[in-house]
């Protein structure tokens, strides 16, 4: 940037870029604060457990006596010592799962990618459709399309994701009456296929369609409601009148002037929603036996594997914090008014 050519430009531009940098720094710092709180919370949450935690390990068959002795020693250590151990390894990289008897991180690491695929696919689809519906409904407020789409979105908004998943399994993968099922009802990939190949990608896509639909339908509703509300906010603005006065066609006014201004809240929401989508993924992955982190959470809960649960909870909360920061930074980049 040729900032130093004119002092007037420099005076106005310098605080702006500095403002953004300061904003990002401040945001990272407050995110760090949140993370410290979550670490403390996660530690004490699992100290509330009643009973003897080491007893849970007795049922595990393939655990060595040395590991068992180590776990017992760790659990008998004073609280401060336990807290120190926890801080050194908050994700329980070396923790032993009470369910499988193997390091927790081996379980979590292997299950991450299906969840990323599922959340990505459902987010992309629900954002695309939801935003389109919201723009159309908000722009033609009070029209038939607006009324019908608002009704349908409110209906989807009230639907439990997993129930939608159960219906999809019943209709499209078990098959109804004479119609055969066309989608698989479990797993993320057919066995014996390399995930990083064309066949693998197709198989993953085939397994992801139904769970992503179940998950996406619910969030589609939210995006379209927010997009509609912000479109309605823009409707009476004077810059739209100006754009029309210039002689722009209606669709150009909408696409080039109204939509960019109205899309900020939706963009924030996409990132803020990650926490809720993870919640939905727990049940949807359970329904579809989709081997991601959500199903792993369900398994950890039903097997009472608290070490695994603690690690998963931290992974989920950590990603929510990260996405919150990303959302704030994107908004600050797009909209300079926010940087204060």
């Amino acid at each position, binding site marked *: 940037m040729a900032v130093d050519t004119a002092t007037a430009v420099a005076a106005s531009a310098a605080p702006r870029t500095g403002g953004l940098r300061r904003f990002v720094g401040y945001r990272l710092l407050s995110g760090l*604060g*949140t993370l410290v*709180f*979550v670490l403390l*919370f996660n530690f004490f*949450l*699992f100290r*509330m*457990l*009643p009973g003897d935690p080491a007893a849970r390990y007795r049922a595990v068959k393939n655990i060595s006596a040395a590991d068992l002795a180590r776990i017992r020693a760790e659990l008998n250590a004073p609280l401060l010592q336990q807290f120190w151990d926890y801080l050194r390894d908050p994700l329980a990289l070396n923790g032993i799962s009470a369910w499988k008897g193997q390091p927790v991180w081996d379980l979590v690491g292997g299950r991450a990618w299906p969840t990323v695929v599922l959340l990505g696919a459902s987010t992309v689809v629900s954002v695309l459709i939801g935003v389109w519906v919201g723009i159309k409904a908000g722009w033609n407020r009070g029209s038939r399309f607006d009324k019908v789409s608002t009704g349908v979105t*409110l*209906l989807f*908004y*009230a*639907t*439990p994701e*997993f*129930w939608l998943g*159960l*219906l999809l*399994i*019943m209709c499209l993968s*078990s098959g*109804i009456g004479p119609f055969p099922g066309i989608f698989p*009802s479990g797993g993320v990939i057919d066995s014996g296929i390399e995930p990083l190949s064309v066949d693998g990608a197709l198989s993953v896509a085939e397994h992801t369609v139904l769970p992503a639909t179940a998950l996406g339908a619910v969030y589609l509703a939210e995006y379209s409601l927010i997009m509609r*509300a912000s479109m*309605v906010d823009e409707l009476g603005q004077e810059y739209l009148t100006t754009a029309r006065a210039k002689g722009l066609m209606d669709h150009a006014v909408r696409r080039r002037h109204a939509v960019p201004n109205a899309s900020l809240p939706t963009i924030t929401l996409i990132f803020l929603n*990650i*926490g*809720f989508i*993870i*919640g*939905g993924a*727990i*049940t949807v992955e*359970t*329904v579809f036996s989709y081997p991601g982190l959500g199903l792993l*959470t*369900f398994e950890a*809960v*039903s097997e*009472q594997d*608290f070490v695994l*649960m603690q690690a*998963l*909870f931290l992974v*989920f*909360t950590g990603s*929510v*914090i990260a996405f*919150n920061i990303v959302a704030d930074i994107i908004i600050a980049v797009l909209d300079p008014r926010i940087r204060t």
Partner: protein
Amino acid sequence: MSAETVPSPTALTPRAVTRARRKAALGRFARAYALHRAGLFGLAILATFALAALLAPVLFPRAMLDITQTVNNEALAAPSSEFWLGTDENGRSVLAVLVWAARASLVVGIAASLISMILGTLVGICSGHYSGLFGSALQRLTDWFLVIPFIPLVVVLAAVLGQRGLGTIVLVLGVTSWPGTARLVRAQTLSVEGRPYLERAKVLGGSDWQQMSRHVLPNVMPLVLANTTITVAIVILSETTLAFLGLSDPFLDSWGTMLDNATGAGAASTGAWWYLLPPGICVILVVLAFTLIGRALEAVLDPRLRER
């Protein structure tokens, strides 16, 4: 202000004035609410479900839910004239279980929302009223809890607490869903605190407690009620999720437990739609009802949302 609404000048005790003013305000509110067709629709759905839940013992005697009494019925039978919605895996009438389950879902939803409302209002008003360290600490706490993903938190908390009674579920959902309310109440408190009558209360030496309870609370309460209605919807959805994951009281019939049992009995793969569809539709209708009522209340109470 509204002295003209006072009926007769002879009964001008302060209490009578207040009562008349409240009555007039309530009447205005009811008329404004009646303009929202969606809100009335939500109220009608809710009334239907509340009636069914209240009349459950009359409509379907408790014995119909006892699995020792129903072993002779065909399990997972399709709807018939005897069982309008078929039977479940224990031969119980799905319709009877459905109506009894309405009780659990409504009770959990309302009780947990009340806990959340009280906590959220308390934290919100205090963090808005006290400007020092205490207030900002409460605000920080709210922000931190807002970040924690709700369903994973609820699932983990229910798993950690272990004893899966109705009370535990109410408690878990109540103590986890307050941060949203607290944030809303804090913003509202800040705007109320800037008004002249609070300045007057401060100048006249009103205590913090008096300022908060007599001046701030009545002004934030309407929006809190609207927000609580929407919280009920979220709580009922969450209870369904918890029950579906087997984290609710296994001996208590709720719509989520029904869906859990239906999945366990393979209703999705065998096409037993009569077992799968009704609980889900009930959840949707009740959640929709609370959402519609909450939105209508918000629209009536928040002038900025009118004209939409």
